[in-house]
Each structure stands twice: as C-alpha cells, then as structure tokens.
C-alpha cells in the first residue's frame, strides 16, 4: 500500500536524495539525525467507551487512533489436553521449572483481532492487510501477550484492536500505528476478576478497580513491568541506517525493514535463546528482545531509472542505435543517475541494523522511554 505508493519525484531528484542519504553522516531532507524520530504528540483515554485507547500525532500531520475492546469468550478445549500444550512450540524444551503460572496459562492467537483502517483504501487491500498482519504478528510473536488474556481454563478475554489512521497516509504509517497500538494497550484495563479457579468468570462492577493489561512498575514491585512490543521502520541506504523514514526517504531506500522489539522481561529466565538474534540483548535495566523482522518492498524498486546523459536522446544520443548499450548502462551505477535498487538486503547491513535497534540507549530504548512519559490516566 503506502510503501508502494508512487512518489512524484523525478529520477534526478531521487538520485540526489539517494546521494545525500548515502553520505556519512547522511543528510536527511528534514534535517533529522539518522536515528531521530519525528516529534510526536500522544495522549491516551480519548475514547471513554473502550477498555483502552490512544492517539498519536506525528509532526508531519499524520495521526492515528487506536481503540481496544475486550470481550469474555469461552475457550474451546482440545479434548484430552489443555489448550496450552497444543499451542506452545517445543513446549518440552521449556521444562517444568518455568514460571509458576506458565504451566496451564497459555494464549491463542485467535484471542486477538486487529483491524487496520487507512482512509481511501479498502479494508481488504493488500497493503492494509499486510499492515494488520505485521502489527498482530508482533503482538503474538512470543505468546506472552495472549497469555495475559487468560482468565481461567475455560474462559479468556478476546481483544479487538481497531487501528485507525485518521489523516491521509502521508508516509508509510507502520511506525505510527505501532506506537499508537502500543500506547493503547498500555492504557488498556480489564475488569477485575472476582471468581476463582475455573468457575464462570464474575467481575467487579467497579471500573476503578479494573486492572491494567500491562501493569506499570510503579504499582507493582515485581519485575512484571512488561510492555507491548513496538514495530519500528528502519531503512538502509548504502551503509547508512536510517530510522523512521519519511515518504521521500523511503522512495530511495535500498532496503526497508519492519523490526518488532519487545522488552525482555524474562531476561534471566531465557537460558536457551529462543531467537537466534537475541544475543545482542545485554542484561541491563531494560533488555530488548527481537520479535520479528519483515522486509518491506520499498517504493524505490518501482521508480523508473534515470538515464545517463550519454544515453539520453535529448542530449543527442540516438536511441535506436544505442538500444543494447542502454540496457547495459542500466546495470551499471553511474554517479548522479538514479537506478532502482536490485536484490535483497546485505547480511552485514542487516546485522548492523538489528544491532542498532536493540542497542542500549538506541532508538527503541529512546522511544519506549518517551512513551513511558505519556499519562495513562
């Protein structure tokens, strides 16, 4: 969708942009540092009827709201086994000494339903569906999120997340939507359970007693201050890694990635790394964990290539004659001439990119800190 949106830039402009972004340090059109996010304004609790809601405005005028609604649903039991053991991959590897409630608590990806709405696009548009898939994938990647929706062996909460972009899609809205979703989930509260065990759930009718889906550390002394994941959009131009690209920047990206990270609450417990790339996380106040990476088809691939003056008929070259050369010229990089990127991301760039995301004091860290400051009342 938005990633494949055509940007009305001439090949020459594209080439210029690409060149500027390839410099060390890169020069971004809006003057930001490579790892700098666009400034944003955020607030929560804007929709009183929801269990949690948030709204974020980026300085470029894009704006999103997310509402979270929860419903009690009966868990379908797989006969013979509890729903949990079926779901966990490699459940045996986790052993028996895991966290005490982990034994029978398990979530299911069906428990979360996420819909994305982008103005001007159908809801079954491929791009919209892809965005929704990416956002929910990040949520469900480690199963820890769905586990929070567990009420008892017979019931669970079903969460409906409605993600709405309310401005025109000026830039690829993935980071905006992800951050808004993150904030809405932080603000989400579920009625306090009064019943015990596997009884039919019975809830406190006092909303003030409702519990946060993600309890904040200030209230709970335990280390249980987990937060929902965030998905960041990162792109690389040459060897430069650029965060939160604007529309124009994305148009010249060599590679664009959506990287989902979460705070690793079980840093001590994860003896066996379930994810290969997890080793970058250092045991610190906040350790980050990589949940998923998706490559995004950058619009740069679809841009028409620039033509070197030598091959340009306007500059006297005879196209009919030079036709075969023109093709080869396209394959070679000519300084100052736009050429759409070909091929996948380079492994080295990928590694650097992931490293950069997870690094302590890095972008993800910074964003999580920033969102911490938002009043969840």
């Amino acid at each position, binding site marked *: 969708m938005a990633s494949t949106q055509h940007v009305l830039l001439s090949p020459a402009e594209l080439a210029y942009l690409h060149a500027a972004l390839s410099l060390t340090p890169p020069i971004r059109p809006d003057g930001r540092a490579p790892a700098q996010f666009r400034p944003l304004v955020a607030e929560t609790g804007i929709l009183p009827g929801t269990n949690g809601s948030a709204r974020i405005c980026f300085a470029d005028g894009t704006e999103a709201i997310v509402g979270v609604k929860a419903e009690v649903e009966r868990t379908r039991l797989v006969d013979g086994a509890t729903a949990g053991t079926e779901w966990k991959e490699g459940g045996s590897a986790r052993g028996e000494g895991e966290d005490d409630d982990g034994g029978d608590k398990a979530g299911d990806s069906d428990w979360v339903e996420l819909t994305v709405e982008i103005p001007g696009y159908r809801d079954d548009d491929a791009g919209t569906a892809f965005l929704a898939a990416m956002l929910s994938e990040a949520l469900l990647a480690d199963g820890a999120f769905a586990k929070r929706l567990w009420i008892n062996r017979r019931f669970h909460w079903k969460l409906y997340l409605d993600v709405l972009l309310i401005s025109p899609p000026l830039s690829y809205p993935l980071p905006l939507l992800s951050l808004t979703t993150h904030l809405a989930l932080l603000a989400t509260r579920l*009625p306090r359970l009064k*019943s015990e065990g*596997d*009884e*039919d759930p019975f809830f406190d009718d006092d909303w003030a007693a409702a519990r946060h889906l993600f309890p904040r550390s200030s209230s709970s002394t335990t280390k249980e201050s987990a937060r929902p994941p965030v998905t960041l959009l990162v792109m690389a131009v040459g060897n430069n890694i650029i965060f939160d690209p604007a529309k124009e920047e994305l148009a010249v990206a060599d590679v664009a990635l959506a990287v989902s990270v979460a705070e690793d609450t079980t840093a001590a417990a994860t003896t066996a790394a379930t994810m290969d790339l997890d080793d970058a996380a250092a045991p610190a106040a906040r350790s980050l964990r990589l949940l998923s990476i998706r490559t995004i088809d950058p619009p740069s691939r679809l841009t028409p290539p620039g033509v070197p003056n030598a091959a340009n008929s306007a500059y006297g070259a005879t196209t009919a004659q030079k036709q075969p050369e023109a093709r080869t010229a396209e394959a070679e990089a000519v300084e100052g001439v736009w050429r759409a990127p070909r091929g996948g991301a380079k492994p080295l760039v990928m590694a650097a990119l992931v490293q950069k995301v997870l690094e302590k004091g890095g972008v993800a860290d910074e964003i999580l800190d920033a969102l911490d400051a938002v009043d969840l009342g």
Partner: protein
Amino acid sequence: MASLKRSFDGDPFAANISSKVYVRSTKSGKVQKIVREVYLRQDIPCSSRLCHGCLNTAPKDAAGQAIHFVLSDAPAGTSVFPQGHYLVPDTNALLNAMDLFEQSSAFYDVIILQIVLEELRNRSLPLYNRLIGLTKSEDKRFYVFFNEFRLETHVARLDGESVNDRNDRAVRKAVAWYAQHLARTKARKIPAVVMLSNDRDNLRKARDEGLHACSLTEYVKQLKDGDRLLDLIPETEDRDAAKDKRPGEQNLYPEYFTMSKMMTGVKSGLLHQGIFNVSPYNYLEGSIRVPAFPKALLVLGRENINRAVDGDLVVVEVLPKDQWKEPSSQVIEEEAVTKNENPDAEGNEGFVSEKERKALQEDVKRTQSKTTEGHAQPTAKIVGVVKRNWRQYVGHIDQSSVSQSGQQGRKQDSVFVIPMDKKIPKIRLRTRQVAELLGKRILVTIDAWDRGSRHPSGHFVRSLGELETKAAETEALLLEYDVQYRPFPKTVLDCLPKEGHDWKVPASIEDPGWKDREDLRDLLICSIDPIGCQDIDDALHSRPLPNGNIEVGVHIADVSHFVKPNNAMDNEASIRGTTVYLVDKRIDMLPMLLGTDLCSLKPYVERYAFSVLWEMTPDADIVGARFTKSVIKSREAFSYEQAQLRVDDGSQQDDLTRSIRTLLALSRKLRQKRMDAGALSLSSPEVKVQMESETSDPIDVKTKEHLDTMSLVEEFMLLANTSVAAKIYDAFPQTAILRRHAAPPKTNFDELSNQLKVKKGLELSVESSKALADSLDACVDNSDPFFNTLVRIMATRCMMSAEYFCSGTQAYPEFRHYGLASEIYTHFTSPIRRYADLVAHRQLAAAIDYEAVHPSVRSRGRLEAVCKNINVRHRNAQLAGRASIAYYVGQALRGKATEEDGFVMKIFSNGFVVLVPRFGIESLIRLRDLADTEPQATYDAESYTLKTTGSREVTVELFQKVRVRVTDQKDETTGKRGVKMELV
C-alpha cells in the same frame, strides 16, 4: 495537537457534565464497560414547602402546572430536634429497618436520595418496591431527591475511593446542601436535616462536618413511642460488637459456595438449582425438584438443609449413594423436639441436639432393617442459596422460651417465635415488650441466619391482635397467603365509570357502546349461582331452533369493556390475579362497583355481555359456535337450590323453566361425553360453614350438597371455555392465554397404587386419564361407600396442579387438560374474579375483530409474567380459602365434642392421619395422644399397619374406618385453634 478529550478549563458548561463509569455483566456472560454521561442541573427542587426559590425554578409538568411540593413546612420534632426535622436515611438504614419507615406514628418528611434508592434496588428488590410504595403515599411525605443530577450535590469519585465511601460522601453532601438550602429560606423555624445511618464511620464523618446525624437507635429513642419502635430495629445493628464478644464460637453450619462457583456447577450439571420445600410433617426433611431428575431430591437433617428456609431458591449437591435414604416415616415436629431450648444460649449444647439425633437414629434403624434394596432415594445437601424468599411471617411467641425476668422489665429479651406455617423454622427475636406480645398474633421478619446460630434471627414488625380473635386470624391468613387486601388506591378508583351506580346500557342503539354488539335482550336468559352471590359472571339460555336443533348461549359479564388494558385498574387486577373467598369475607380483584354492579349480570337490568352461542343437536353434538359482544337482560337470578326446585316441580311449565330443563338434559349428555373421553371425577373434601346471620359466628359445619343444577352450569362453562380456547389459539398461536393440566408422572401414583394393592387388592392403572378414571370407578368397597371418595381424594393429591400458560411456551400436545380430558382449555367464564379470564376476553374480542389487538395482549413476555403471577395467586387464594374454612370449622366446634367416623389416610411409625369427611378435616393422631404414657408400637411399612402394645393396644391400618372423638384444641405450636381427634 489539540487534545480530543473534553477540556475542563475553557468550557463554561464543563461543570454541568460528568460521567459515570462501571462494568456491566450481562446474563449471557458479556462484560462491558459502560460510560454514562450525567448532565447536571440546578432546577431540581428541594420540595420543601418552606422554600420559595425552588418553587419558582422547578420544572413545570406538561400541563404547565407547578409540581406539588412534598415535605411539610412544619415537620414534627423530636426531643433533640424540637424545631422539626427532615430525615435522610442512608441505604443501610433502609435495608435494616424498612418496617420503621412504614410506621404511622413517626417517620414523616423523609428525603430519599436517588443514590440510596438505586443502591437499595440493587440490594433488595422487595424492599425497593416497598419504598416506592411509601414515596407514592401522600400522607407519609417521602420525597425522592435526585441528588446525582443536581449540580450542587453531585459528587465525583476520588482516586482510590471505594464506591461505598463515595456514596456515603454523596449522602453527606446532600444533607449538607439541604441544611444550607433551608437556612436560606429565612423561615422562622428551620427544620434540622438529620442523616440516619448505622455506619459508625459515616456518622463520625458527618458529625465532623457539622451535620446532624443519628444512628437508628439514637433516633428512635428520641421519639415518643421509642421503646415500642426499638423492637423494629433488627439485630444486625450490633452484630459487629457481638462477634467480637464471642471469638471462640464455632460455626454450626457449613459455609455457602460463592455465587460464581454455584453458577458454574449448575451450568456444568454438577450442582442443581431448585426451590426448597420443607415436608409439612417433618421439619428436618425437605425436597427439591430439579430439572435434571424426574423425582425430587431429598434433603435430610439440619446440616444438609444448611439454613435454607421453605421457598428459597437453593443450589444442592447430590450426596454419595451410601448416604441415600428413604423419606422419613416419622412425624417430627420442631416444637416437640426442640422444646426447652434457651434462645439466649447459643451453641453450647452442640449443633444437632440429642433429641434430634435420636429421631434420626430411628430412621437409620429402619432403613437398615429393610431387606429390599432400592427403596432409598437420592439425597442432597444444600451448598448455597441463590435467592432468599423470606417474607414476613405470622406467628406467636413461644411461651416456654420466655424467661421469668423478661415477663416484667422492659429489658431486651430473646424469645422464640413460632411461625404459623409449620414449614418455617422458629425465629429468634429480641424484643423489649415480651409481656405485651405474649398471646398475640405477631408479624415478624427474618433478618439473617448466621453460620453460628441454630435458628434464624428476626425482628418484630407489628402485632395483629389477640390470638383467636376474628380480625387477627383473618389478617394473619391474608398475610400468610400474600393476599393483597388493602383497599383499592385512588388511582384505581379513578378508572371507574364516572356515572357510578347510575351507569346504564345506553338507550340509543347509535351510541358507540352499541357498536358491533348484538341485541340479545329478548332472549330468556337466567343465571344460576350459589346463594347470595353478588358477582354474577355468567348467565345461560337455550331455545329451540326451527330445524329441530337447539341454540344454547352462555353469556359472560363483559368486564373488558370497563377494564381497559394497562390502566391502573388493570395493573392492580393483574397483581391481585383473583378474588379470594374466605368464609366471611371476599377480597375482590376488581372494585365493588364493577364486580357486584356494573359487570355483574344482575336480573331485570340490561348489561353488556360477551356471548358464546352454539347450535346443538338434541344429542348435544355441536353444529357450530359463534362469539359476539352483546347486550342482555337476565330474567332471573336463581340459586342452585331454587333452580333445582323449579326444574323438579312438574307444575312449572313456563318457557324459562323449560329452557332450563333443556339445558339440564343437554348438560347430562355433555358430561357423559366428557366422561367417555376420560375426564376424571376428582374429589376434595368440601364443607360449608354455617354462620349465624347477625354476628356471623360459625354455628355449624355441613358438607356441600351436590345438585344437578351445579353440574348444569359447570358443563356449559367447560364447553364455553373449550370453545374459546380453540378460537383464541387459532387467532393467536403464539400468545393465547390457555390453561393446562399436565399428566402426572407415573411415579406420583407409585405409593397409592401400592397401598391399594396391599390393602384392598385393587389395581390402579395410570396409563391415561381414561384408564385412571375407569380404575378409580372400580375402587369400591361395598361395606364402605366413602371408600371410593377417599381414594379419589388421595388420587387428586398425586396430580399436578393445573396452570395458566401462554400458548407459545408449550408444544400443542402439552396443552392437554388431563383432568378434563380436553385437548385445549382456557378460563373465560369468570372475568370478574379471575384475571386470566379478562385476558382471554380481550384476546377473543381481538380474534372476532371487535377491537384492535392491544400490545399487552400480544406481548409474549408480558403474558408469561402475568401467567406466572396468576398461577401463584390462584394457588394462594385456594390455600387461603381452605385455611379460612379450617379456622371456622375449629371455631364452630369450639366447646363441643362429637364422635365421628374417620378414615386413616397416612401412617407414620409414630402416628397416623385421620380424615373426617363430615367436617372435611384431617388431623394427625400421635401415638402419645393414644394414652397417657406413649405406647410401644411396631410399624410394618410393607403392610401399612401400626400395632401398638403396652398402655393401649390398637391396630391401625391404612384406609381403615375409625371412630374418633373430635374436640377443639388450641394447637400450641401454631397458636391455631384446630380440631383434636382421639381414637375411640
């Protein structure tokens, strides 16, 4: 970015809007967050007549009239507030002591806050309804103040504040506002605004804020008749203190399950929910009918009954098979077993007393001596109560529980109250007026039943009067059977025709009242009813048709013409459900004017009627039926006896008499047809009490005579009902109001058929009503003409009771009326005294296109609610009528002793029940009544024989005819005067 949230700074109206957030759990299991916006206003009046400011700003009603202010400008004072005062009770005050507020000696000018009203509704619906009743009564001056919507008294919840604290604060704020507001009126005497609460914390805070606040006890003490009223304050007030006093006290009863645990269990089928019924013969035995099993589950013993009271909706768990038992064959009366308990001492004699244990031992012995296995019935224990059905109970104080000191001083004393209803356990009562209440019928309520207390505790509501005075006993009866006997309120009387008794059928045929009405005034119509009947619902006629057939008409009072759906009168009638007939009193469903005059088909005057007209062959085959609204003029109102005499007198050859003879002949044929189809002729002992005309003191008891003219009327009414049922079902397949009588489960007859087989060698076949009718006919004992009636009486008790229902709730085969052997049936013929008939009238009128269908007649939900209510009312009315007869029979026999024939109906191992047909009464004769020292007895359950040895030797068998001496005796347990029988 501007925030999307409502800002409270810039907006001048922001203060007028608030919101309320809560979680709503629906029945289907949904859990929703609900946000309600609250728009605050300043024109909600204080409703005090002292205040002129409010009067000017208060909203006017639709007619532009200012609303009527409620609170008096000169309210009563107390010793502490001589300047007069308004009361503001909090929720707990109302929950605990609603009876206080209903007193007529005090508690006037009460401000009910909206928040309190809402809380009360959530906590207790019956109390809420009583409070609403109070706010409607004009002389009590209760005013509902919408404090949550008034800007000044609205309270926003603070962070971390509990709902209760917030509500308490709202109450205090309202009290403070009222005090300030009234101070501004500059009246000479400004009444104090007094908060009533039993919450110590709330009282303290109120006093800190400088408000007037009293606990209930403190307040009542300020009143003139405070001592009397103090008894109305329930125990719970100082329960906290009491708990501290006795920390070591152990809990006697198991704890109840949590509500969610019970509901989960019920849903998954592990627990069962049902209404708890106590056996009338044994207070330690109860039964619960649950949908999962065909037969009721037994609940035996105090611990298993676990504080449930008859009528409560409870959840039970089935006990393991080794604990299954047979229902007790013993009579165990609470009074006899727990005679000398001391109401003050709790728990020190063990939970199950020695005597109770002994009574149970008997049971065990008997069960184990049984060789035949499989007689044991599944038993269950109660694990929780879903809904208490406690009401107010009529009873009297147990003389023996009164300590010596209590008889004199005015110290608070604990006594036991023995309810009139034997199924209700005795209630511990604390009162200061023991001496006055002894020997009185009193009304009490149960407040609580703690785990640590053997008996429920309650408080005194009011005294009905001396035991055995007619007024007290009648009122007691009406209260026990929940009969609405208050006079009709003004709103109901306003619905009556303005002309009153002068109302007449309009003379002009052009009048709208005549629209679509047939003029049947020239028909020879007459009515036949019991002597002295004033509310004549039905009249009949017959006339020969030219084709040799006969036209028969049943004309029913057109009540639906006067009672329009959904007005106050209709609502009142739907609540009352039925007219209740007591021996000396009738409690009407509709106001007298309608029942005994305008609707009543009195002779010689024109009346509106709803007529059913059939064409019948002389063999009573129906050729066609027609329904129409009509105007009739009854020629004569006969009593059954008069009509019978007239028919039997051959010299009477006028048209009217001949038409009655035709009807009689037809009715015999109809009856025969019905019998052939398998209708049952059932029986219940019915008697009539003869009263002295002046004093209406009962002088004699007579069994009712049966006359042919009675079955004449009955047959045609049955026919009319059946025809109408078919018609309205045809018109409204989903919502027709019908009456069904379910076929009794075969197991109901197990006991009786076994008894008949063992004792008389008779077979009872119960496959169908026809088979049953035939085998009942065959149950004859040549030596004893009454035997057949006895069996019919006992068979009747095995049946289900008939019920009203809405046709959409049952499948067509379930419509069947078992007793009448009719496929479909309804009640149509007595709209003056039964609400169901009134609904049937409206439906029939709509079915024949006489009038449009009113929504209330079409709404299935509403009709189901109506059916449910009238089924209960109907049953209560019957019970009340019977109890009234029983009381008067007792009174008629007072001081007399007669010897009568009786029949043994039921045998226990320590007594037996004898029915005396002459008086229609049955009574228990215990072994210990047989002789001064209780004789030894052996009970053979196989052959239903009880043999006594020792001080007196008799052998009593089931169905045996015995000679008994009937005397009157005041029953110490219930305080009722009843009959006492002695074996001669």
